[in-house]
């Protein structure tokens, strides 16, 4: 087992870093994609609300792996069109395609998390904002969003951890994340213990994230 790890340490480290980067990037970008969707879901009864609901339903309903296949392999069908609009550099790259799929997927889940916590904000807060004559933007950016974010932090952390493990699907579209490296090393050694090492990496990464999240939650002392 040790030689499988220490002998291939450079590759394991590369995989670990890529997994951490891809999951973190997708969760962070996904958060900003999710914000307007959550706002539309929570506050809009018109067309924006319907569009937001449509987005959430589609991207929660399609399995992440299928989404990755559709974006990575599916875009190949439209390579000429994508070239002509100057987007081929993006869609020919498995890393970008994988990241896009991850973002689209996590944004749908995060939008629902944030919508949920926006909806739990008491009407008394909205009345206070009105009485203080806050503009709609200030009210959202300075009051509703921070309160909603603090309430949403535990489920958002949960989503982050889920995304770390979901990135393992990237290996199937030729990305060398942890799972990709593990498959590579396995194909050279045919030693199944490779996957124990991969599992241990994921576990350590998740425990690290949990520890960070606990500290962040503790820092939000005004929640008490």
């Amino acid at each position: 087992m040790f030689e499988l790890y220490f002998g291939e340490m450079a590759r394991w480290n590369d995989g670990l870093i890529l997994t951490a980067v891809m999951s973190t990037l997708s969760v962070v970008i996904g958060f900003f994609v999710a914000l307007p969707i959550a706002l539309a879901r929570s506050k809009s009864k018109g067309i924006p609300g319907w569009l937001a609901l449509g987005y959430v339903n589609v991207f929660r309903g399609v399995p992440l792996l299928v989404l990755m296949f559709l974006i990575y392999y599916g875009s190949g069908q439209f390579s000429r069109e994508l070239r002509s609009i100057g987007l081929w550099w993006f869609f020919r790259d498995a890393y970008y395609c994988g990241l896009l799929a991850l973002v689209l997927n996590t944004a749908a889940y995060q939008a629902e998390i944030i919508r949920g916590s926006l909806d739990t904000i008491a009407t008394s807060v909205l009345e206070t904002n009105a009485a203080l004559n806050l503009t709609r933007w200030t009210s959202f950016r300075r009051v509703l969003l921070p309160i909603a974010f603090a309430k949403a932090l535990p489920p958002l952390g949960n989503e982050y951890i889920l995304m770390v493990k979901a990135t393992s699907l990237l290996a199937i579209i030729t990305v060398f994340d942890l799972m990709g490296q593990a498959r590579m090393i396995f194909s050279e050694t045919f030693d199944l213990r490779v996957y124990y090492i991969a599992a241990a990496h994921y576990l350590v990464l998740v425990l690290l994230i949990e520890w960070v999240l606990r500290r962040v939650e503790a820092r939000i002392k005004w929640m008490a």
Partner: protein
Amino acid sequence: MLADTAIKFENMNKYFGTFHVLKDINLDVAKGERIVVCGPSGSGKSTLIRCVNALEQYQSGHLYVDGIELDETPGTIRKVRNHVGMCFQHFNLFPHLTALENCTLSPIFTHKIPKAEAEKQAMDYLAKVRMEGFAHKYPSQLSGGQQQRVAIARSLCMKPDIMLFDEPTSALDPESISEVLDVMVDLADGGMTMMCVTHEMGFARKVADRVVFMDAGEIVEVNDPEGFFANPQEERSAKFLKQIINH
């Protein structure tokens, strides 16, 4: 309409759906006048003062605040709210902001006052409510009475002409009640126009120019405090007073 009228209700009616909450309200509040609104629960007294800063809309009649007739257009509502501060029963401080930040949020982002100036002004008002030592505490670290005093300072930072109080001491323990009332007395002595829904009859006696007694959506009696407490003109006010004194 008199130039020194701060708030004027004219045959105002309000409904919640089919329920007639406020019935033909007529009341003039002069500038600098202190009005205490009392009455049994469900009588519409909170709704009455919530109309003044357009937290509630009325359906017929007229309501003038600082000479502006309130309608449902956002522009008018914004203008009126610039003249009116409000304190709530449950303080409603923003939990994620310190006392100081609670006070500077709206001046900085609504009135576009530079941060340093807004903070200086907020510290002055926090000092006025004797909370300057707690400027950097979060609401969760403050007692109810302290939170309400910060909430009063927060409203004052908007430099209102009129202050509304919606049962500001109902959620407080006796000790906190007096610290909040002291601040309100200071405010009244400073000449602020105030409309206050409260059951604190001692406060009403001490600072109110007039007491408005409401029941079932109507203004039943408007009287000066001495007259109201000693010699209520209406049977319903007399009954109400008996109940709150005897408990």
